[in-house]
């Protein structure tokens, strides 16, 4: 079956074109945009790991290795689209417009970290695996009913494909032909469980057959493949043709989270042959004359400053407000809850 789902690539491991379909659409603007965002989120990611090590952040889920998949797909979105991320997709959400400060806050156990800017429809990260797929279908359905051109994207991992909600969400989307892109990052592992223990199918993409929708398998470390295939899936969706399942084959370079020790379950050498998505883009830029040392230095500096500022903002952020424990359960607090709040605040006063 997997022979029906060859991995689509636009550039190879050495940064050379292997597919020229989109060659004309690749220009300096796009290349720099991809590079800029990938560098930016990678720098964020590494900073977050450092902060966690220093005890300035809680347990953190890194995405290093998945930048091409996350940035490439996020850049394919329109501003009014809907994004349904997991806990590992802040590379995508930051690229789409979520604030870094808020993202740091999220990893410090701050609910404020879930809130995206008002002009971006970004759901809070889904922690219960695969539960966001039906939401993406529902939001897309609403857009269809409203008659807009907006669409949804649901991010999820290889492990998520085993949950019922994966199945039910895609089934609904396919039956109601709603504009949604199911974007799977197959990063090889669900915590410690390798993909061959997760599923008996050789690919995630082939699962699209179950729903009679297109399934596309792409090299998730090739930012161009990700960008253009996601864009195509969105075009398909916006044109009223319904959902697409994209499998972006990528690799989680680091631990599942900072609390995880991958050496317990995967060989040191595994994945070492995979060319890093940033390296691949750099090679491409050098091969095709996009490499601009000065611009890169500027971008690095700008990004570093931006992130430092975000760290500062995060650390200066007003302390958690105990009232938030009670205030966002209902629009209007039921009497018993109001009483609980009141009596707890009074208790705190007394202490």
């Amino acid at each position, binding site marked *: 079956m997997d022979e029906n789902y060859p991995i689509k690539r636009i550039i190879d491991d050495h940064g050379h074109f292997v597919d020229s379909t989109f060659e004309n659409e690749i220009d300096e603007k796009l290349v720099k945009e991809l590079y800029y965002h990938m560098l930016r989120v990678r720098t964020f990611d590494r900073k977050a790991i450092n902060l966690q090590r220093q005890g300035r952040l809680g347990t953190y889920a890194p995405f290093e290795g998945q930048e091409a998949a996350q940035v490439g797909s996020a850049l394919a979105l329109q501003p009014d689209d*809907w994004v349904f991320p997991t806990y590992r997709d802040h590379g995508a959400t930051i690229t789409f417009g979520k604030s870094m400060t808020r993202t740091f806050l999220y990893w410090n156990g701050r*609910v*404020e970290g*879930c*809130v*995206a800017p*008002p002009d971006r*429809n970004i*759901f*809070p990260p889904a*922690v*219960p695996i695969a*539960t966001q*797929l*039906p*939401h*993406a*279908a*529902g*939001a*897309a*359905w*609403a*857009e269809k*009913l*409203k008659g807009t051109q907006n669409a*949804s994207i649901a991010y999820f991992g290889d492990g998520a494909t085993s949950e*019922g*909600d994966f199945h*039910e*969400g895609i*089934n*609904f989307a396919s*039956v*109601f032909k709603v504009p949604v892109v199911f974007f799977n990052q197959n990063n090889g592992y669900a915590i410690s469980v390798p993909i061959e223990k997760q599923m008996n199918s050789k690919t995630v993409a082939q699962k699209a057959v179950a729903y009679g929708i297109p399934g596309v398998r792409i090299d998730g470390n090739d930012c161009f493949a990700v960008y253009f295939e996601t864009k195509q899936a969105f075009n398909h969706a916006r044109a009223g043709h319904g959902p697409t399942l994209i499998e972006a084959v990528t690799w989680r370079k680091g631990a599942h989270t900072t609390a995880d020790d991958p050496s317990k379950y995967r060989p040191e050498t595994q994945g070492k042959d995979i060319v890093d998505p940033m390296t691949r883009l750099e090679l491409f830029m050098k091969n095709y004359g996009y490499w601009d040392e000065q611009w890169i230095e500027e971008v690095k500096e700008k990004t570093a400053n931006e992130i430092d500022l975000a760290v500062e903002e995060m650390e200066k952020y007003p302390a958690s407000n105990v009232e*938030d424990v009670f205030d*966002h*359960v*209902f*629009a*209007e607090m*039921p*009497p*018993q*809850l109001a009483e609980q709040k009141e009596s707890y605040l009074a208790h705190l006063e007394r202490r």
Partner: protein
Amino acid sequence: MTQIVESNQKDVKTTQMTMIQAINDGMRVLLDEDERTIILGEDIGKNGGVFRATEGLQEQFGAERVVDTPLSEAGIIGTSVGLAVNGFKPIAEIQFLGFIYPAYEQIMTHVSRLRMRSMSRFTVPMVIRAPYGAGIRAPEIHSDSTETLFTHMPGIKVVCPSNPYDAKGLLIAAMEDPDPVLVLETMKNYRSMREEVPVGKYTVEIGKGKIVREGTDVTLIAWGAMITVAEKAAQLAEKNGIQCEIIDLRTLYPIDRDIISESVKKTTRAVIIHEAHHTSGLGNDIVSIINDTAFLYLRAPIERVTGFDVPVPFFSLEEHYLPTSARVQEAIEKVVHF
């Protein structure tokens, strides 16, 4: 029966309806007045629902607004979350409460928590309707009465009308509520009574119980199908000179503590009746409310007449599972003669 009639509307046109007709009528009003209303469920379209709750609605409002879904409760609830967040007002029908469990994760982790998680940026104004309860000779699992699973879930309200008027009024109130509301509909009462129900729109306030019989000696607290059982028991008790007050709780979360507390302070005795299992049934919450608010008034331990701590049995035995007026009557005698 001393039915205390609510009338916030004067000179309202009314018509005779059964509870299922009142629910159908309520949904028609909601579809009619707001084009964002959308109904999702299994067999609710052409078939009009297995209980005919949605009869005629698809015909009137089209298959885009009254939608037959795939057989997938998590799908129904999960997509409803997306629809609700994105501007629609879904009414999700779960065919029987016993089939809500596959959607439990969606309700527990999203329907009820999305407001909190997003600090009220994303809210989920939706209604879940679910027929519940035993006593209609339905197959296994069709007869569960597991309201506790939802009262123990911060972020969702739970209502449970016992009659046509309340059914329509609470359904409309639920849809006007900015937060998710689970509407539990006792199948036993779907067609068991007919009463005058206002034509058009009206609401019954969520969070308010109702005294459906006034009395001085003991307070009976019940909801849904158990109101009828309580009323029969009260009639039996009256023959022995015991005057029961009956509270139809109507809303299971947030519970109307005041109505319970005031009544028990007056009568000094209480019997709680519910068809859910005894252990961790909502009756325990009511015992606590009385403990918290009327401790010094209580002259006898509170009695509970409930479903047993067994799975609802197959229908040849279900009458043995359900509280009966005879069991309630014994409980009344017990608290009165403590």
